[in-house]
């Protein structure tokens, strides 16, 4: 049997999620032995012709060209994985979705008219069918490995969906919110990092996106009641996964629903 072909793609992103794959120092050579790395520009200039069995897509869709390219890729790839919070929610660059992209462009570029961008930065699933979403800004490299291994073994990958809070309890981290009054988005955030931030005494800022089934609005109201400066809770949710519908709705619940702008 020939080895399954894997393709890795980049869209609007920081490269951090692709780097997480290259950071599998102990596993990389074995991985490259178990699959055929058929397209991965960050790692190799060798390009094998499609179709590909597994496609890992980093980044969000933020330009007209990207919107076209993702359609072509969907036709090439049998199992498409959205890799990281940019790909699953639109990422940090989706902050433009809450304002006018033209207003941002004039701040940054002398000739904004040279730019070819979309008004919004959106997740891959808004454009094509996505078979699996892997959250994290950046992703946990072992979750990437687990997904590929599971596909090779024809089983469902083990990707728990509880909130970060449970991980704090497991590792015996004292709750930063209860003990120090530090705002923490852990109650509403998906597991995957192992509760890294609270373990160092800071609050979670939601980089793994919303935990399925969490109490988003309740968390938002609780956070707001503990703010150190006005708008802290809104900013916490309107961040790396701010365009995820659950965080969007929770912010709407805080600022009254009609407004789009965070209370600054």
């Amino acid at each position, binding site marked *: 049997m020939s080895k399954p072909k894997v393709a890795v793609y980049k*869209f*609007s*992103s*920081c*490269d*951090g*999620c*692709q*780097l997480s794959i*290259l*950071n599998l*120092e*102990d596993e*990389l*050579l074995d991985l*490259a032995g178990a699959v055929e*790395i058929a397209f991965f*520009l*960050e*790692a*190799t*200039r*060798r390009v094998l012709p499609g179709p590909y069995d597994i496609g890992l897509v980093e980044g969000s869709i*933020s*330009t007209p*060209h990207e919107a076209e390219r993702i359609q072509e890729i969907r036709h090439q790839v049998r199992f498409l994985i959205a890799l990281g919070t940019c790909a699953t929610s639109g*990422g*940090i*660059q989706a*902050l*433009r979705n809450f*304002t006018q*992209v033209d*207003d*941002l*462009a004039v*701040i*940054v*570029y002398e000739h904004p008219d040279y*730019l070819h*961008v979309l008004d919004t930065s959106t997740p891959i699933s808004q454009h094509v069918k996505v078979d699996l979403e892997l959250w994290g*800004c*950046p992703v946990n490299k072992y979750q990437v490995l687990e997904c590929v291994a599971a596909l090779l073994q024809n089983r469902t990958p083990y990707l728990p969906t509880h909130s970060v809070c449970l991980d704090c309890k497991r590792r015996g981290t004292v709750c930063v919110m209860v003990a120090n009054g*530090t705002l923490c988005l852990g109650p509403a955030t998906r597991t995957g*990092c192992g509760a*890294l*931030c609270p*373990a*160092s005494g*800071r609050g979670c*800022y939601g980089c793994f996106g919303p935990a399925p089934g969490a109490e988003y609005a309740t968390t938002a109201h609780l956070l707001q009641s503990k703010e*150190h*400066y006005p*708008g*802290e809770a809104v*900013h916490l949710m309107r*961040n*790396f996964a701010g365009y995820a519908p659950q965080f969007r709705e929770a912010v709407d619940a805080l600022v009254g629903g009609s407004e789009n702008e*965070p209370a*600054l």
Partner: protein
Amino acid sequence: MRQNIEVDALARVEGEGALYIRLKDGEINDIQVNIYEPPRFFEGFLQGRYYQEVPDITARICGICPVAYQMSSVQALEAALNITISPEVRALRRLLYCAEYIESHALHIYMLQAPDLLGHDSALSLAKVAPDVVRQALRLKKIGNSLLRVVGGRSVLPWITQTFRWTMSLSP
């Protein structure tokens, strides 16, 4: 004689780019580099964010060298707010930065550049003829990442720890 060299997507670079070289009578006549990395407007959406939030956001400018962006934003904020940091914090920051140097240089030299110099497609194909060298390179890269994890919490986008802690304790 070949007239044009066209590379629509450069491989093994940090980011995205294309390269077009036009030759005329064996001489280079025209070179075009196209960096088509999409704009993400960090300078724009940073406006209106609190200073506490800035280093986390700027880290996402580049996941390959996030410490550089955290460090420059935190230094800009400190200069603006007239904050002096302790020698201990400065030493920790330097350690974090050195960790990134080690990881990022190992990545660049062995995984991104060496294959070009040695006529290979990738470090993976290089590993087939020189497995020990590639394993050693990966070990070096891992040392940088381990240090990043110890000081910064994780290897990619190390989250802000004690090294930037003033951002947590100072009220606006």
